[in-house]
């Protein structure tokens, strides 16, 4: 006897930005099919058409207020490549620093505000860690919640020193940056960083010094670290790890097993004459595609990018490279799971199909030996991935938080390397051309393509990390990364599918999500939940 399939429609899933609806089919308490559906269209690419070439610097940070610095970075590098600008080393460092502090801000904000609060859910009241979880992580009132959410505002004070405010400054411009920090700006930035480290990263998050944490190079090292001292086991990282195992979020949320990163943080002396082709060999954090099944790493090149529109609400042929897109939204957007059901396109790699973007992808790629010898290498998460048998909600979230120390070190590097009396900006000559700017926002691969013609924007295209991850099915029926990761998720309580929220939030998709519950056989709606 096969159990009836029940469909759960979650709308909105919540605690992410924008609007995401998720539909899941459930059989024997396990998700057997899933659809992710982006429910908001603002048309930024349409707005940018025919505008000033620099309009992207103003408009695209507003595409996402959570990772606006990353959009600004892409917008600036895209114009730099189109205009063949020269970018002085101070400016590269200042752009990197801005992006890094935005990411540092996002770590505690996502960790406490969006992710850990689910561990206080009554579903887990049987866990031996539950009482402690409630004490630490309850929204607004939890001890570490309040500390973490409040201190998350500090790193972006450094952004304000560079660009005047966070979010939504446009201080990165083709040819460099608008600011010229002074010695006091630099020393102030240092003290802000130190405050963040001494009051949250070391005592609360890690329970140890950066130096101790940096010694962890493998899964075994990590487990030894966990047992080494009570401060480690009881830190938020230690507690997160132990409770994750206890409540089983290490057992689902696997996904495709194929990953992408554009790489990021251009080296201050290697990308002063930026070109699209030269980027891979100029970024500190290397780009790549990792295939977990064959355990192979390759460099990523933007020419492989394709957008499938078969299940997305656009009236255009599919399978095009972003330079070929025109962004033509459909007039009417009814939800039809056999046809079109999302504003998100299905992004794919010309040769490798669907790919997952995000911090886990970055860390798996950081473990590859492809790329240049001077580029960043970190084997830890790749080792965990292999030993733990692939991805999971737990590993994806761990990878996100693991990056904090490394980013912090890069922020220190920028502050140390600024040459305050050297130029911050070299005025470029405006010209027509095609440009591409990419980076890694905290939640994954982000890039902009621009074509300037006749002194105005002919085409502007953005592919955000969420576009990779929440995309609907592809032309060939392959599931989107989150759709795929939802498969196999156990649902303890149909009336309260917290597990679906875990999977979505482990991707930190920049959409607000919703789940709707249906009986797939009768089509009858059972319930509708938000998972926030």
């Amino acid at each position: 006897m096969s159990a009836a399939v029940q469909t759960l429609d979650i709308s909105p899933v919540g605690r992410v930005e924008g609007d995401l609806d998720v539909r899941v089919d459930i059989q024997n308490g396990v998700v057997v099919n899933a659809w992710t559906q982006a429910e908001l269209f603002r048309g930024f690419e349409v707005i940018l058409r025919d505008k000033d070439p620099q309009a992207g610097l103003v408009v695209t940070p507003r595409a996402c207020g959570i990772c606006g610095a990353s959009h600004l970075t892409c917008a600036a590098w895209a114009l730099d490549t189109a205009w063949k600008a020269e970018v002085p080393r101070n400016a590269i460092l200042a752009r990197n620093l801005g992006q890094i502090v935005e990411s540092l801000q996002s770590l505690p904000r996502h960790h406490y505000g969006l992710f850990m609060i689910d561990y206080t859910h009554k579903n887990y009241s049987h866990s031996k860690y539950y009482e402690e979880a409630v004490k630490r992580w309850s929204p607004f009132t939890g001890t570490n919640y309040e500390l973490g959410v409040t201190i998350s505002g500090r790193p972006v004070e450094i952004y304000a020193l560079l660009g005047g405010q966070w979010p939504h400054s446009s201080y990165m411009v083709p040819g460099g940056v608008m600011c010229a920090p002074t010695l006091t700006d630099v020393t102030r930035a240092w003290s802000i960083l130190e405050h963040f480290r001494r009051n949250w990263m070391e005592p609360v998050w890690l329970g140890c010094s950066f130096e101790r944490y940096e010694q962890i190079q493998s899964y075994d090292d990590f487990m030894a670290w966990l047992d080494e001292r009570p401060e480690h086991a009881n830190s938020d990282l230690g507690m997160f790890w132990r409770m994750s195992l206890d409540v089983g979020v290490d057992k689902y949320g696997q996904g495709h097993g194929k990953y992408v990163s554009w790489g990021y943080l251009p080296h201050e002396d290697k990308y002063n004459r930026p070109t699209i082709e030269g980027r891979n060999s100029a970024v500190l954090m290397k780009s790549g595609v990792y295939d977990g099944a064959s355990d192979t790493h390759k460099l990523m090149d933007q020419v492989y990018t394709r957008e499938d529109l078969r299940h997305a609400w656009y009236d255009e042929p599919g399978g095009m490279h972003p330079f070929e897109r025109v962004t033509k939204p459909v007039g009417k957007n009814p939800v039809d799971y056999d046809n079109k059901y999302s504003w998100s396109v299905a992004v794919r790699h010309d040769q490798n199909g669907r790919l997952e973007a995000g911090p886990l992808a970055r860390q798996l790629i950081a473990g590859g030996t492809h790329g240049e010898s001077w580029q960043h290498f970190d084997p830890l998460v790749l080792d965990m991935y292999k030993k733990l048998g692939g991805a999971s909600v737990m590993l994806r979230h761990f990878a996100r938080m693991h990056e904090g120390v490394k980013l912090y070190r890069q922020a220190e590097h920028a502050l140390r390397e600024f040459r305050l009396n050297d130029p911050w900006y070299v005025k470029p000559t405006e010209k027509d051309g095609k440009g591409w700017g990419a980076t890694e926002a905290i939640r994954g691969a982000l890039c902009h393509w621009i074509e300037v013609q006749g002194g105005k924007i002919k085409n502007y295209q953005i592919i955000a990390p969420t576009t990779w991850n929440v995309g609907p099915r592809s032309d060939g029926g392959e599931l989107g990364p989150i759709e795929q990761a939802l498969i196999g998720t156990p649902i303890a309580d149909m009336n309260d599918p917290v597990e679906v929220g875990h999977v979505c939030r482990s991707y930190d998709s920049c959409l607000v999500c919703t789940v709707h519950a249906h009986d797939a056989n009768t089509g009858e709606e059972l319930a509708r939940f938000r998972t926030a």
Partner: protein
Amino acid sequence: MANLLWLQGGACSGNTMSFLNAEEPSACDLVTDFGINVLWHPSLGLELGDNLKKLLNALTSGQMPLDIFVFEGTVVNAPNGTGEWNRFAGRAMRDWVSDLCKVANFVVAVGDCATWGGIPATAPNPSESQGLQFLKRDQGGFLGKDYKSKAGLPVINIPGCPAHPDWITQIVVAVATGRAGDLTLDEFQRPKTFFTSFTQTGCTRNMHFAYKVSATEFGQRKGCLFYDLGCRGPMTHSPCNRVLWNRQSSKTRAGMPCMGCTEPEFPFFDLAPGTVFKTQTVMGVPKDMPSGVDKTGYIKLTAAAKAASPRWAEEDIFVV
């Protein structure tokens, strides 16, 4: 205990992110110190598996009181006035907004999108976006110009792209603690306490403005950004240089021209070619004059200022 509901329409979450930077009071303080009951917020709060629609229905039917309705983002009307391009909890967001505004005691529009339409409403406005009670400079917007919330106030507009966290928390606390009577609003329904002075008020480049010394390019520590780089500081009502951003700075202090984001026209000139970060001039005279200054006055002032300009004005006064 004031019930607060915060929803997002055509938004980027920038105002939410800005709000989380608040320190006195912080977002957590609103709950723990001021007893504000955050019923739902798109990126905060727990209530897993809760039936949001039920909650929204309880509010719209009057079963549960809605003291403060905060809206971030535009009201999306596309396609063709249906709002289907922005669905939320199974329904066009615009329909939720319309119902919630009928029962709310106070309605607070946070950020440019909710106040005037902001970036999404920039031509050609593909999402047919509107602000709650304005579209750009025109009063009316989604709710109509006669709209008043149950407490008898029009929508309280806190513009800015994003709004500064202190502007948000201060107004929310004022309303939640019964001080709404002290709020005075200007013609664009902005609280006067914030939006009467100019961005330029308190700008560290003010002395350069006075002596007409220009920052001719980016990355310069001296010079005013008005003459060449398109700064709108003298024409923009905002306290950005009085209530600093992230406790540290402001755009103009850091060297970025003010784009006038608290004014209904933002983004100015609809970002037409040639208008971004470049002062628009007619025969060498800026097209948009500092508020209250006419062209003849400006030309005279300029000549005098240039003649009187001290030597230090051309030097790097914010020295490394």
